[in-house]
């Protein structure tokens, strides 16, 4: 199963690498911003349309 930790958007917490933030760049009709949402390293990413494979 592909998981969040394999994704470029995943930024693990220093104190607990099993948890982290999914950070993405967003452009809406009025502004551009970065958003962050808490995710777990082993969350299922197989159906995530924003998944981007992390470069090793």
């Amino acid at each position: 199963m592909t998981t969040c930790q394999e994704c470029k958007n995943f930024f693990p917490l220093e104190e607990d690498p099993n948890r982290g933030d999914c950070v993405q760049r967003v452009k809406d009709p009025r502004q551009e911003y970065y958003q962050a949402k808490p995710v777990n390293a082993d969350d299922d990413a197989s159906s995530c349309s924003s998944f981007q494979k992390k470069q090793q």
Partner: protein
Amino acid sequence: MAQTALKDTSVEEFEKKQEWWWAAEKKRSGRLDYLRKAIWKKGAIGGLYAPGVKTDLEQAVMTTNMAKSMEGSPDPYVIKSAKLFAHILDNKTIFITDHAQLVGYTGSLPNTMNWNPSIASILNAEVFNDPNAIPDPVDKNQEVIQEIVDYWAGRTDLDRMMPVFDMDDLMKMLSGSIGWGVPLARGGYSNKDYEYIMTGKRAFQDIIDELDKKLDEIDDAVHEPMANKEIAVMYDQLNNWEAMKIALEAGIRIARRYARLARIIAENFEEDPKRKEELLKIAAACEQVPAHPPRNLQESFQYDIFIQMMSRTEAIEGAWPCRPDYYHGPYYDKDVHIDKTLTKEEALDLVGEFLIRAAEVCQFKPKFAREGLQGIDGTWVWTMGGVDEKGKDACNDLTIAFMQAARLVRVANPTFAFRWHPQVKDEVMREVFECIRHGLGYPSIRNDPILISNAMHWHGHPIEEARLWVHQACMSPNPTTKHGYQPMRMANATANCAKIIEYVFTSGFDPVVNMQVGAETPDVSTFKDFEAFFDAWVLQMRTIFSILVRSVNRARLLAPTMTPRPFLSGLSERCIESGQDTCDPSIARGNAWITAFTWVENADSLAAVKKLVFDEGKYTLAELKDALAKNWNGYEDMRLDFVKNVPKWGNDDDYVDSIMLRCLDECAKFSKELKCPCGNNWPILPENVSGNIHYANIVGALPNGRRLGDALYDGGISPGPGLDKNGPTAVLKSCGKIDHVTQGRAFLLNQRLSPTQLADEKGFQLWKAYMRTWADLGLDHVQFNMVDDATLRSAQKDPEKYQEVIVRVAGYSAHFVDISRKTQDNIIQRTVQGLG
């Protein structure tokens, strides 16, 4: 406007044409311009949310899932409330907008409106029934919403409280005929103990340390070989303190999440070194506050934004009581003048952004609130100026910076209310005037000495506390002190006062909602003299006020156990000290007021009855009753007599003015009989927001000649639009007959002035002379529209071109194009007063 036209026209040319909005766009910094245009317009336009603005389902789903997961938990309710709050802060999506220096938003994305489904099922139903605001895919999300609505049915604050209310009162209040609001502690607005948390002496971590000490002490105490009443109470204190701690710790954690995001952007994405530095500054600020007191202006603003955001996670907040120049002023002084770490221009950018961060805040509101607050999400009336606790002038350089920033970013919300007093310097008055002249409709001007006396008279606030007042909503002063701050919207007792006179003719039966709401006074046609008629008016007034006040009193009493607010309690010295909830009336002084919507119709109607029925005997009460029941149909000549041939309020005519004073005396007398659960009084406060339009189809025909469906007067003690025919001084003189200390809590006055007349230095001097008369006559409030008819009519014809024109509606400002046609017409109808 086309970009080339904007580029080719100079600031001076725009200013000469009084097209202030284009001038502002050219004058402000690139950062402010980007951030100003980045705002999603959240105020409802004619009652509907703007395209693209969506209800935030993320927090609603999170709230629901967390509530489900805690169902079997043995935790006391207050602890569950705190855990729910913490869960949202720990898991919500956060974002940082490009160019921003301040962060924090109520929703998960910039275009979303926060929805808290745990407060009222009637609100949840409106979310479901508002497909325009449901995010895509609508069908699927409607199912999600349906599940949320179903889960909360019977579980929301209001649903749980209804069985323990007086159902008869509650039905009358919620019928929409006499009230405007729902008696709930988590649905309204809260003032805060800013003296405790905003003076740099402490922040969240200090309070948590204090709570830890209290928890240790109490843990020891309950295990001593002793048992008594004090110990029995300690378990509740323990739970409340524990809940406050959970909430404050979550507050620190979400700030650290923002800090982390800022660092991630700086270290992984941002290439511009200047922006990188800014992001690291954001990170440092969010690591400092709210855990620790701010060290500079940016952190001070950031601290404030976090507190507001968190408060809006815990409850629906329809207002924004604060005093930003007073509490942030010392940091401005330190950064700009002492440490010189900020230039004035850089500080102005921060101030402008602070206004923008507030302008974008939004929570989904029910339709009655959207109609009453057209064009805005809530009344963010920020208090400026005034005196300090010792009575010395508190205006500072940040007061001036706020006025200047407001003219650059030109947001309609927040607006300012300026506490005028005799020591205010001319340079500050000039800045205030410039905002009004630039057509912002704000600041409104408040008479500080009068309102300080008023706070002491009505609520017994000691003078040092009375001097520290802020607007709890549009109009009502409330101190930001330990025992003075008021944690809920007691003004859910908002009365649609035109019903008082209407019910005299219907013996209390409301034909619109088809129920007996008012008192069953005798058939109006049986009254033999004006005194009997007036007695019926008094009884209807007492009945309506009592229904509303009883319901709100009940809600306040139930709030500490049924709808606790652990976060708000955690910011309050009296709660930290006592271990009681913020709404607990036993630890508060009380500062309730009845907002009196649609008030002046009473004086004009009573005067009409007195003159044409009793003094001149031209008509009988039976005829008048019939005419009103038929909405004046078939009685047009008679109606015109009632409109034209009776003195109207606002013309310095003692015939009608004395009736106004008599009505206010009756209310003031009753206000001292009515008591809130803190044991304090319930004075009235005439003002309207845009209730005059909302109630147009709810209030029947009235003896002042108004028909069902016509807009009501624009509120407070403002004369009816176009009925003040004797000039501005006559208006002030009528209003000056009211004792603004003892006859009510505050009195709103709308005035329209001519922008052409007040264009230059002479204009400023004319305005100052007018303000001197206003102050000498002892009025407590005045606010101005200074946009001419031609501009407003052009904006009606070509709204696209006039998107940025702002007008004063009532206790708030709005973009002219965002308010309904009826409200627009009502503003145009107001008399433009020539000064001098």
